[in-house]
C-alpha cells in the first residue's frame, strides 16, 4: 500500500516536471482586464467626485481650493484596486491600468494628484447624479467621504449623537488628534 502510493506519487511529480516561471527576468504581463493601478484621465474628468464618494477605502480626496480650482488626490497606499471608481465614473475618465509592479520604498510614489479647472456647471450641462440610473448608486450619504481631511479623524460622523459624558466617565479615552494616530 505504502509502496504503490509512493510509486504513484513519483509519477505525480514526474509528469509536470519543473514548471517555475522565469519572472522577473522575463516579463509576465497581467491579462488585459486586470484591475491594476487606477489612472485618471484629466482631460475627461468633470470633477464630479463620484469616485471619491463611492470608494470603499475612502482613498480619494476632493478639495476645492477656490471657486475655479479643485484638487483631487488619490492616496494609492490604501487603494484596494476594486475598480469601483471606474464603474461609477460618468465620463469614463478612470481606467484600471494593467500595471501591477508597484513595489516601492516610498509610499508617495503611488499617489496621484489632479488639478481640475472647475467652471460653473455650464461647462458640461450634466452632472454625475443625473447620469446614474441605478437608485442604489444615486444616493450618497455623506458627500465625499474623504473631503474633510483635517476633520476626518477629529470629528466622527456620528458626533451629534455622541455622548461626551460617557466619554468622560471612562477616563482614559483620548480622541486621536491627527489622522491615523
Amino acid at each position: 500500500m505504502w509502496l504503490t502510493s509512493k510509486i504513484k506519487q513519483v509519477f505525480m511529480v514526474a509528469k509536470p516536471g519543473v514548471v517555475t516561471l522565469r519572472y522577473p527576468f522575463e516579463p509576465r504581463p497581467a491579462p488585459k482586464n486586470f484591475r491594476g493601478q487606477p489612472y485618471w484621465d484629466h482631460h475627461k474628468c468633470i470633477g464630479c467626485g463620484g469616485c471619491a464618494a463611492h470608494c470603499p477605502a475612502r482613498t480619494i480626496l476632493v478639495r476645492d481650493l477656490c471657486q475655479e480650482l479643485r484638487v483631487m488626490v488619490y492616496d494609492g497606499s490604501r487603494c484596494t484596486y476594486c475598480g469601483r471608481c471606474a464603474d461609477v465614473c460618468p465620463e469614463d475618465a478612470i481606467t484600471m491600468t494593467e500595471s501591477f509592479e508597484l513595489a516601492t520604498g516610498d509610499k508617495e510614489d503611488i499617489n496621484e494628484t489632479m488639478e481640475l479647472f472647475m467652471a460653473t456647471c455650464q461647462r458640461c450641462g450634466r452632472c454625475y447624479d443625473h447620469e446614474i440610473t441605478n437608485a442604489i448608486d444615486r444616493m450618497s450619504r455623506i458627500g465625499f467621504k474623504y473631503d474633510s481631511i483635517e476633520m476626518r479623524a477629529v470629528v466622527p460622523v456620528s458626533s451629534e449623537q455622541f455622548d461626551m459624558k460617557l466619554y468622560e466617565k471612562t477616563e482614559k479615552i483620548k480622541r486621536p488628534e491627527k489622522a491615523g494616530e
Partner: protein
Amino acid sequence: MDILIAVINVLIFLTLAPLFEGVVRKLYAKVQSRQGPPIVQPYYDLLKLLGKETLSAGNWAFRIAPMMALASIITAVSLMPLGYTAGFLTQYGDIITVIYLLTLGGVSVLLGALSSKNTYAMVGASREMVTIIMVEPVLAMTFILGALKAKSLAIDASMASSLSGSYGFSMVLMLVVFLMALQAFVARQPFDIAEAEVEIMEGPFIEYSGPGLALFKYYMMIKQMFYAALFVAVFVPIVNTGYYLVDMAVQLVEILVVFVLIAVLGSTNPRLRIDQAVKYYAILIAASLVAVGLTVYGI
C-alpha cells in the same frame, strides 16, 4: 602523513557538507516541480548567519552549546577513516569514543534548548531526547556488529569489517535497519520530529540567531554527511583499490548517492508523530539486536 590525513578528513567534511545539503535542497525542489535554490545556497546561508547579530536568550550554556556541538562532530569526523585510510587520531579512539562524541552533539543541542527556556524549545528538547535514546542504540549496534566481526574495538578495523570478513545475513539485516534509521539519524522527514517546523518552529533551535544558529546548522549538515559516510564505509565496500585518493573519490560519490536517497525519501513522506516514531524505533532496535545476535553465531 597521518596528521595530514586527519586534517584532510576534517577539511573535506567542512567544505563538502553544505554542498550535499544544497544537493538535497535542490532535489527536494525538483520533486516539488520547482527550480529550487542554487546548489551552493547553504554556503550563503552560513555566511549570512555568521554576519548577523547574536541575540542571547539564555545563560552561558546557551552560548557554549553550539560550539560544543560543532566541536564534538568535528572530533568524530577526524576519527573517521575516510578512503579506508586511518588518520592520525584514529588509533587514539575506538568505536565507543565515536558513539560518545555523537551523543555529546545531541546533548549539546539539548543543553542549548533547555537553557533557552522557551516552551517550544522544551518540547523540541524532549523529542530530541527521545530520539537520541531510541536511535543511538541502532548506531551502537552497527558498531558492535562491526567490532564483533573484526574482533576489535578499533575504528578502522570494525568499520572495514565488511571488507575483510564475509558480508553475511546479519550484515544485510543491519544494512536494512541502518537504511530505515537513516532518516532518523539525519533528522529528515519522516523523523524530523524534534525540529518540526509547523508544530514547534524548529524546536531546539528556536531561540538561536546569527552565529549560534550558523554553528548549529553547520553541525547538522556535518552530522548528516557523517552518517552518510558511515553508511558508505560500513556497508558499501564496492571498491577498495588501496589508492587513497581513488577510494576517497569513490566514497564521496557513494555519499552523494546516499544523499539522493535521503532527499527522495524525505520529500515523499509526511512527518510521523513522536509516539508512532517510538514504535518504529523500537522495531529497529529489536532488529538490530537480532543482527548482532546473528553475528555472534557467525551467520
